[in-house]
């Protein structure tokens, strides 16, 4: 069984267009049901507040009813760039621009009737990741979470530094909650970012660590 892709009838230039409003054409093209954008401001006594945000799009699974031999690339290449654009436009809006972003991550939740590979297809290719990295002005590989999801569940999304992923202070997670998504025939795709590290990060860094090996197990103090 195959699905009928939604035909792209017009060519538009999204490179400079904001999708914060008036995005009906994009919504229709990807079967978008809703977008939920979460942000939190954590005041910091000695400086700027830390802002952390997620933006989550819930779309119809374009591969509903297909089998494991079905080629995923055409729909992934068509849909993933639009998801990246919608989600990063919202992250940049609430976080104050790419210059403010220090950490990022991504996630996809597949509804019960889909395949884990469907979730991966929308976030684990350059058609999503490269565009998100470019929009947020990062260079790091994007850390991620993916899996099956039921409506009403929470999902915790990892983030790390956008240009130096081994920077320990920026290892952090952010939790999202979707009351009614993803349904069995839907996929939820998430982009996440933070303007700073964990509050009060103070567990050193790989640059300051002394070498640690299993040799230390030979002289453990109890």
């Amino acid at each position, binding site marked *: 069984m195959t699905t009928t892709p939604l035909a792209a009838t017009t060519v538009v230039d999204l490179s400079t267009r904001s999708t914060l409003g008036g995005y*009906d054409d994009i*919504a*229709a093209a990807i079967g978008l*049901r*809703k*977008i939920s954008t979460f*942000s939190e401001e954590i*005041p910091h006594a000695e400086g700027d507040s830390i802002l952390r945000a997620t933006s989550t799009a819930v779309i119809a699974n374009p591969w509903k009813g297909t089998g494991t031999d079905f080629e995923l690339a055409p729909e992934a290449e068509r849909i993933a760039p639009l998801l990246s654009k919608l989600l990063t436009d919202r992250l940049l809006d*609430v976080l104050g621009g790419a210059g403010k972003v220090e950490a990022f991550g991504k996630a996809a939740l597949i509804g019960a009737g889909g395949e884990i590979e469907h979730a991966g297809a929308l976030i684990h290719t350059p058609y999503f990741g490269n565009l998100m990295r470019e929009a947020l002005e990062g260079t790091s590989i994007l850390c991620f979470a993916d899996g099956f999801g039921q409506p009403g569940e929470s999902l915790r999304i990892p983030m790390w530094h956008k240009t130096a992923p081994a920077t320990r202070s920026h290892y952090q997670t952010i939790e999202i909650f979707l009351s009614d998504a993803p349904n069995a025939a839907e996929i939820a795709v998430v982009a996440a970012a933070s303007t700073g590290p964990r509050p009060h990060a103070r567990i050193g860094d790989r640059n300051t660590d002394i070498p640690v090996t299993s040799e230390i197990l030979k002289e453990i103090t109890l």
Partner: protein
Amino acid sequence: MKYRKLVTIVEETTREGGRDVDPVARIAIVAAIFDNPWAGQGFVEDLNAGIDAVASDLGALLAPKVIEALGAPLEAYGKAAIVGLEGEIEHGSALIHTLKFGNHFRDAAQATTLLPAVEKRGPAGVHFDIPLKHFTDATIRSHHQSIEVSIPDAPHPGEIIIALAAATGGRPQQRLAALSTEL
């Protein structure tokens, strides 16, 4: 107004019931999480000092933020007070059920009706549904709706969440007969 964190959620609904929602339905929620002003004081008979210290500042903080987050004309609104497990529901009610708090939102939204509310006590991450009604006529049935919220690490036992919610319209695909048709 000192708070541990400030959470903003914006939901944009583009499809409902298998049909497009035009224009896109937007709901915004802004929530402040802060120390319960009566924490550790036992039963406080007169809550006015705490109300005076917090309620107006809280309304002034949240009202412009939720209107900005909505980003389009407001047609429905509501509020929430979620108290951590060591507090009384009355503590949350005290902060939202005064004109000192509510008038900031009513004035900013050019609204005239009472704000519908949820008051609840629970652990961090507790789910709560904020009711919203029309901002100038609470009998307008199309605008009766609610939005579910959960904030992962709030409220702590000694904290309170106070939230405002705003919507650009009624329920997506609303199509119930008006109240007047049944009177």
